[in-house]
């Protein structure tokens, strides 16, 4: 069985080869966290690929082998590897038997700046990775704080946006300050600066809010994928090779899979739903300290 070093080299070679063909791409999520000094317990690979590079990635995957095995789509939920669905925020899933696992996205679920702007080596920027880790899963939250600290250590004050731990905020603010303009994007920083006792509650509210936004996004995509997933299962394509599956998945996706599921709801409704969910749990006054997420979520609603 291949070592993890071999596996990582395989993924990084894939990224380098794609770039050699003019496709902008970067490793993100777990593997990027390892590169940035924050180690999660995951060994699969997530990459961001410029959506218009989907065709070249498909050709590349078809010719790739890991331990002699060809790749294929994983499961019935994966859309075709096509710019139309990548632009809509879908993720394609591939595997090389049970040896290597690759998830491909064209647009991160959250991004303040285009992910293409901050690529560092083979990896997405620390900011891109940290924004992607604002997930519904509690286990990702310590990673955002750790990545925020990495940004601050590199002299990037954007790191203040990601510190979700009250002790870290309190300790740092005993000696450091943040740029005043960050308060507009993250109002609870003002509570932290003033040593306000409401800080802990505001941090809880913020985490609930960002988790709820992610949960709502996932629910919308899960609902949207059901007819397509059923059609994929009915078609019996799971035994076909990658190129054959790609063609059939594309046909089925045109019939059953909306490219941009978030267009089924307005951004304001989406935000209001999340705020209502938080309001059911925390003191209403803490809603004033929720972060401004227009910049990081808005792109998927455009």
């Amino acid at each position: 069985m291949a070592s993890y070093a071999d596996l990582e080299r395989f993924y990084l070679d894939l990224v380098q080869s794609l770039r050699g063909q003019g496709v902008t791409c970067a490793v993100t999520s777990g593997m990027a966290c390892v590169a940035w000094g924050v180690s999660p317990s995951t060994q699969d690979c997530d990459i961001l690929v410029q959506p218009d590079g989907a065709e070249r990635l498909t050709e590349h995957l078809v010719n790739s082998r890991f331990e002699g095995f060809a790749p294929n789509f994983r499961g019935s939920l994966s859309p075709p590897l096509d710019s139309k669905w990548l632009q809509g925020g879908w993720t394609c899933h591939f595997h090389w038997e049970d040896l290597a696992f690759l998830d491909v996205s064209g647009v991160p679920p959250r991004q303040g700046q285009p992910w293409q702007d901050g690529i560092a080596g083979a990896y997405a920027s620390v900011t891109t990775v940290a924004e992607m880790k604002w997930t519904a899963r509690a286990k990702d939250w310590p990673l955002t704080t750790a990545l925020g600290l990495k940004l601050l250590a590199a002299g990037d004050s954007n790191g203040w946006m990601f510190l979700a731990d009250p002790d870290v905020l309190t300790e740092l603010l005993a000696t450091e300050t943040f740029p005043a303009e960050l308060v507009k994007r993250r109002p609870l920083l003002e509570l932290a600066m003033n040593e306000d006792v409401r800080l802990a509650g505001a941090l809880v509210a913020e985490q609930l809010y960002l988790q709820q936004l992610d949960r709502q996004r996932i629910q919308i995509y899960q609902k949207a994928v059901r007819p397509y997933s059923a059609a994929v299962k009915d078609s019996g394509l799971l035994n076909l090779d990658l190129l054959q599956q790609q063609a059939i998945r594309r046909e089925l996706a045109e019939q059953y899979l909306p490219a941009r599921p978030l267009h089924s709801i307005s951004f304001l409704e989406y935000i209001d739903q999340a705020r209502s969910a938080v309001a059911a749990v925390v003191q209403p006054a803490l809603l004033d300290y929720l972060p401004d997420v227009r910049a990081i979520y808005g792109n998927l609603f455009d």
Partner: protein
Amino acid sequence: METCLTEAQRENLRRVEWEFHVRAFGLEMARINFLPEKERRQALYEMWEHARDKGFRSRQERNP
């Protein structure tokens, strides 16, 4: 927003970061996270391979 840090600021950040990693991830993972990149990767590979040898399978490996 890039700023230049003083040596004292770097040291303070490093201390806060270390203490957070110990609290959030445990002492062993904090030690690994603070290794230079090459050694960090090697330590992770060894840890994952040890887990695999003991029969651990990731979610993807269990449901390919």
